[in-house]
Every structure is written in C-alpha cells, then in structure tokens.
C-alpha cells in the first residue's frame, strides 16, 4: 500500500525538478497528438527545438516572443502571491498596448516617447487591474470572474477603436495608425528583432524578485496571500495590500503590451496578443510564483510557440499543438506541485 504523507519542507532542487518533470510529462502526453496527426514525434519535436534554439537568429526570435510572457508571468506571479486572482492580464496587456500606441503616435524626441509610452502603458494596465481589486475589496465580487469578464470588455473596446476612430481610412484595415518612427524601440542586434523591451523584461524579473523577497511591500503581499487573518492580526491593512498588488500586477501586464507596440508591431491590431495574458498564468505556475523562475518558464513557452509554427510548416501538424501543450503543462505542473505538499510513502500491510 502507498499513502500520501504531509511534507513539512521541500528540498531546494524541487524548484527545478518539478517544472522539468511537468514539462517532460507534457511532451510525452502531447506526442500522442503528433502521432494522431500522422507525423513522427521525434521529427516534430526536433523541428520545434531547432526552430526555437537552432541558431542565434532563432534564439533572438524566441526571446522576443518570451518578453511579453515574462511581463504577464510576473504580473500573475505577483498577484497570485497575494491570492489576488488576477486572470485579467490579457485585458491589462491590451490596455497597455492601446495607451502606449496613443502616446507613441505623438511626435516628440524618441527617448521621451519611449519613457512616456512605458508609463502610459503601465498606468493603463494598472487602471484595468484596479477594477477587479476594488470590486473585491468594496463589493466582495469574486476577482476571478470580474477580471475574466473585463478581458472581454477591453478586447471589444480595442476592436471598437480599430474598427471606428482608429480605422485606416485609406486601406480600410482595422489597424491603428503606426507610432512615430522615433518611438520605435531600438534594435539591439543588427538583423534581428531583439529590441530594448526584451532587455527591460529580463531586468524586470530580478527587480520584481527583489521587491517580493526583500521589501516591506513584498513581505505584506506574501503574508496577505499566505494568511489574511495573520496579516490583519499583524497590523497589515489587507485591503490596501490587495489594491497595491493589483496596481503592480496590472502595470506589469500593461508593460507587456508596451513592448509589443514599441518593439514588435509598432501599432495595435486585433491579434496583437495571441493569449499572452493567459500564458502568463502557465508561466507563473511553472515558475512556482518565483519572479526569477518566470524568465526560463516564459522562454520555454515562447520556444513552444515559435517551434510549433515551424513544426506545422514542416510536418503539417496543426500549430495549435502549442495551445494544448500550454494547457497540459499547467495541469501537469499542478499535479507535480503535490510533491511539495505530500510525499508518497510505502506502508506495510499491518498498518
């Protein structure tokens, strides 16, 4: 007989082993779908790997795609630490994109434009995240549902903008006017799309880690998440912490949108985010809500996304495999997390 036994502490190597275990299980499970599509499993995964890490250009492309998911992953990690269930990173990202696009279209010196784009995008994301947080604190509205519903509101607002006032009157395409050339984020490596926003994302992760682990606000966020009663008893204003968390989380998600506008698309269109906000949840869980872990987790998902497109072209397996991989990875990681709370013990027949 086996039984689950509560575990009091987890060894440090679990932080690395559990996500790898989850990812391994995911790739094994999803190989069934590749086989179903009539392609060779090793060939398909091989194409994915070489398309995402095969040469220096591929690596930069993967990093460019990882950047928004680093930001949304951080947004979700911060929120979930406080048990503020922000599922609205998608809407916050879109709001950040729209706001930065507004600012970026105003003629001004490039450096100033980029700074103001980032500020506007962060502010817009924070403002959107403030809605579910306020509704929860003031009206006891479940934050999951309100932040999810808000994603639809923001999406349709964006669509109304690009189908209405922003619509390209010349071509009739539902896209926003482009931002000023001077506001385009500088490319760091000639011949690639590796832009300043990617570096910003890579710097943001240790900054957020420092904030969570080493500052008073971070301490309050963690205590509020682990035990609101203890937090209250300890004199922490839980409602205020939730609002601060939401602002921080929303701002980070908004920055994801800023990077997409300033560094990749230079304008806003309906499919500016292929669900980066939802991917942020997968990223944050794979990272076990550790801001430093968000970076490799986001790079993994980015590799899956870039790789899946190449795999689809080479083998005909639908690129939607990457969506299945994301969902499976999230569920596999949750199961793997059981090992942090429990250990499996063999018990004798006598007991």
């Amino acid at each position, binding site marked *: 007989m086996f039984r689950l036994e509560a575990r009091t502490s987890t060894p440090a190597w679990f932080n690395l082993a559990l996500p790898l275990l989850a990812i391994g299980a995911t790739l094994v499970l999803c190989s069934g779908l590749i086989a179903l599509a009539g392609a060779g499993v090793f060939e398909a995964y091989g194409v994915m790997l070489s398309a995402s890490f095969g040469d220096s250009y591929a690596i930069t492309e993967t990093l460019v795609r990882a950047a928004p998911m680093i930001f949304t992953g951080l947004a979700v990690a911060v929120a979930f630490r406080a048990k503020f269930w922000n599922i609205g990173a998608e809407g916050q990202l879109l709001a950040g994109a729209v706001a930065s696009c507004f600012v970026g279209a105003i003629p001004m010196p490039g450096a100033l434009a980029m700074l103001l784009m980032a500020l506007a995008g962060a502010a817009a994301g924070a403002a959107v995240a403030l809605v579910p947080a306020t509704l929860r604190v003031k009206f006891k*509205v479940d934050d999951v549902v309100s932040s999810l519903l808000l994603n639809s509101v923001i999406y349709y607002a964006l669509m109304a903008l690009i189908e209405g006032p922003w619509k390209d009157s010349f071509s009739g395409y539902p896209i926003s006017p482009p931002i000023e050339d001077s506001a385009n984020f500088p490319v760091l490596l000639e011949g690639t799309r590796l832009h300043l926003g990617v570096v910003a994302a890579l710097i943001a992760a240790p900054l957020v880690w420092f904030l969570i682990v080493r500052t008073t606000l971070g301490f309050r966020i963690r205590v509020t998440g682990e035990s609101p009663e203890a937090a209250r008893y300890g004199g922490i204003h839980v409602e205020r912490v939730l609002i601060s968390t939401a602002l921080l989380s929303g701002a980070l998600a908004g920055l994801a949108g800023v990077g997409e506008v300033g560094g990749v698309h230079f304008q806003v269109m309906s499919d500016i985010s292929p669900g980066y906000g939802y991917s942020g949840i997968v990223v944050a869980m794979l990272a076990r809500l550790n801001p430093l872990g968000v970076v490799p987790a986001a790079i993994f998902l980015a590799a899956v996304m870039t790789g899946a497109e190449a795999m689809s072209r080479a083998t005909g397996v639908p690129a939607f495999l990457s969506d299945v991989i994301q*969902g499976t990875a999230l569920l596999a990681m949750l199961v793997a997390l059981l090992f942090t709370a429990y250990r499996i013990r063999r018990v004798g027949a006598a007991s």
Partner: protein
Amino acid sequence: MSAVFEQIFQVGFLAAIIRIATPLAFATLGEMFSERAGVLNLGIEGIMLLSAMTGFTAASLSGSLWLGILAAVLTGMLMGALHALFTVALGLSQHVCGIGVTLFSSGLAYFLYRLIFGQQSVPPSIKGFQTLPIPLLSDIPVLGPAVFNQFALVYMAIIAIPLAAFVLYRTPWGLSVRMVGENPRAADSAGVSVIATRFQAVILGGALMGLAGAFLTMAQFNAFTFGVVSGRGWVAIALVVFGRWDPWRSAGAALLFAFVDALQLRMQASGLGHIPYEAFLMLPFIFTIVAMAVMSRNAVAPSALLKPFRREER
C-alpha cells in the same frame, strides 16, 4: 427615437431572448450543480468550446444531430471528470485547475478541428436543428411564436430548469450535493461519500456545459468557429453568483443577460450604424460586472466552495 424603439421591440425580440438564453441556461445550471457541491469549475469556457467542436464534428461526420448532442454531452462529462480528478480527488487549486482545463480543452478543440477539417476559407457548416412548433401552444399570440416555435434544445432547457430545482431540493442525491457543498465533514459523518458526490455533481455539470456548447454549433450558428463561445462560459459563472446558486434564479439571470444581449444586437442593427458594433458587444459584459457588484454583497456562496476535502485531515 421611437422608430429605433419600435425596431428593437418586435415580436422576434422575445424569440431572440429565448434563443440567446438557452445555452446560458444550460451552462449556468451546469456550473450551479458543480458549485453547490463545492467545486468551482472555471473549465466551463473550454468545456463548452470542446463540446461545441465534438458535437459539430460528430453531427457533420455522421449526419445525425442527436449523435452530435451525445458526443457533446459525453465530452462535457469527460472534461468534468478531468476537473473533478484534479480538484476533488487530488484536492488541487480549483481556480488554477479550472484555467488549466479551459486552456487544455480550447487548445484541443482548435487542434482537432484543424486536423479533421483542415484550413478552409469558408468554415464547413451543417444543417442544424430546425424549429419545432408545438401544436396549439405555438398559436398563442406573441408568446406562442416566441416560446413554442423553437429548437428542441430550447424546450429541453425550459424543462431542465424545474428538473434541476427538483433534483437539487427534492431528491436524496440533491440533498447530498447540498451537504457536501455546505458541510462536507457532516455529510461524511452521515455516511455520504463526499468524493463520489462531488464527482457526480461536476460530471453532471459538465454534461450540461456540453449541451450549452452543442447548442451554439448545432442550432445557433451551425458551424464551428474559434470564437464560438467567446466568453459565454465566464458569463455563466457570473450568472450563478447573480442567481445565488439557485436553479430558478440562475435561469432568471440567464434570461436577464439574454435580454441585454438581444438589446445590444438590435441596437447594432438599428440606426446607430456609425458606432462600431464592437462597442455594443461590450455592454452585456459590463452589465454582468455591474450586476455582480450589486448582488455580491448579500450573496452567500456554498460554505465549502473552493475547499478540498480530505477525510484524514481536520
């Protein structure tokens, strides 16, 4: 203004409300059963999408709409069982598992649909359910054509509401569901299997979510598109709160939402053409958020909602 008003409130308006409310009623009742047993199912959005896909595919390949319904219901039950496996048997976070089930089911729906139908410029469609007028009743003025000249699935939804109330409030199983949702430890002491009851409730909920998805692709749109569910699942979760976890009130909430949705559809079609139609699409979602804000203060969720049950732990 009065011309706009008249155009909005035509006879067909009531029929449109009923049609929009039908998938929401199924989904809301499904989520309600799950939550009354103590399990929040955020997988609903993905379960509806996957069921919409499997139902459409089965109907398209077999030529039988009812086989499609069966496939959709079985899909819903299977995904409900998956969610229950994670949240009830393993006791994992209901929030994150639900999102995981939605991501997984949506991804699987897109993947399988593309695999089976390939990439086509015009999405394949089926001849969906036709309206089935009920003799005599459909001759009642106004109400008749709106309510009694509908798809068979609409009648099923109308029957499902009192049936759900009966099952929940008047049967031993319904009592067990309410007990494991309110006080699982007491239910356990009384000899009710908490795990089994929760599994059953989540699977029943999944079946109803499957019907909701099937309605979309087999009666409303007669085709599968990637945006076919577009937030209806999330709305259903809000409607359960708005309906205070009661079958009658939840169905009423679905009708109210359908009214707002039908209204914005009519506004799109009426003389307000210079406003992009997406602006109107926001309205039902804003309405739902506001409605939740109004109702949530006094809403009393099942006590054990979100709380996993482990017999050996206290």
